[in-house]
């Protein structure tokens, strides 16, 4: 038996949801078609995971915009962010450029986004997920992570981390 398979067995045995995970894998691996889709999906997940947490690389512009959003106590629109940028990043004073950078930060899970009225507001991932839960009539204990990720534009793992934070 290869090292990877042995390691997987050990991880499944140690995991509190190991039995469920093993059941899912068994179900998907016995069918060639499902196995192929599983491989593609797992590769997608690996790519998504690599853009998270400590692996996230931010540009100088992104770092500036991120600190403006997270340093402000109230959520901000792209216009408000653009108005707060210093002279050293003149291009960010244009709302369109600020919007591009803001949405890039959201897709990297560095900030969160929610819609109120006709405007999108940028804030911490935790507050954005909290707002989306309210709009969906869900709670941290019972929620649709995939839909929240789709609606907010944040990575699934960021949504998961925010939900965990809300449970504390």
């Amino acid at each position: 038996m290869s090292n990877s398979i042995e390691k997987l067995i050990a991880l499944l045995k140690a995991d509190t949801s190991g039995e469920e995970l093993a059941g899912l894998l068994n179900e998907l691996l016995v069918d060639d078609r499902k196995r192929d889709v599983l491989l593609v999906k797992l590769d997608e997940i690996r790519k998504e995971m690599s853009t998270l947490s400590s692996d996230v690389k931010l540009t100088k512009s992104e770092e500036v915009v991120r600190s403006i959003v997270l340093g402000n106590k109230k959520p901000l629109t792209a216009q408000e962010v653009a108005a707060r940028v210093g002279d050293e990043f003149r291009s960010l004073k244009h709302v369109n450029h600020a919007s591009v950078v803001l949405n890039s930060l959201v897709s990297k899970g560095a900030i969160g986004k929610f819609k109120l009225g006709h405007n999108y507001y940028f804030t911490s991932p935790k507050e954005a997920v909290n707002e989306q839960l309210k709009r969906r009539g869900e709670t941290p204990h019972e929620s649709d992570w995939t839909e929240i990720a789709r609606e907010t534009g944040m990575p699934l793992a960021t949504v998961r981390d925010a939900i965990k934070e809300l449970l504390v």
Partner: protein
Amino acid sequence: MTKITVQTDSGKIRIKLHDEAKAPVVTGPTGVEPLESSKPVATNSKALLLPTRLINLMEIRAESGFRPNEEDVEIVYALSGSVPNTPDMLHKLSSQTVVEKAAEDHVISSVRGMIEHIIKERSSPPRLVVGVHTHPQGVPKPSDKDNRYFRNAFGTIKSLVPEAYVLFGVHAISSESIRERLEPTKISRNAIKWSSITREHEIAFYTPESNTYEVKLVE
């Protein structure tokens, strides 16, 4: 570790989120929000001891009743506990068997349905029941109708769960606008106030006779 339910395209899956700082797992079925308490709570207090960790669930429940381009309606939810002074669960009570009609200035709910839900969700009769309804863009004070409701509901609740201590809450919520989050603080003997990033919240607690009932925030 906390068990949560996550909706997926193919249905619901249960996920266990590890939490190094928490006490053993408390779980509940759909619609119930269990609260894990890491500290023992005094049972001889004359005040309602409201854990701050319940506040966020109350905020989400209260604000989830609002829909864009629709008028804000009152909603109901309940808190329950296994001791007479400390709630440890939030019950959404969104089922039509509990809420018969919701409007801007009133909500018609079934007290019997509420208690049946609570007992089902706790797996045993509660020692504390706090029936809460919201006042969208209002104040956390009971109206004359609310006073009558408190008295009538108290009789029904006591007939169904005689051991339970019964209180009522009025949860006022402001209109929606972007604001700074403010942490919960006690602003009077029976009231707690806080702000989410979109609405201001104030909840006050009352006895079945509509007298104020002291509340204290606990970790």
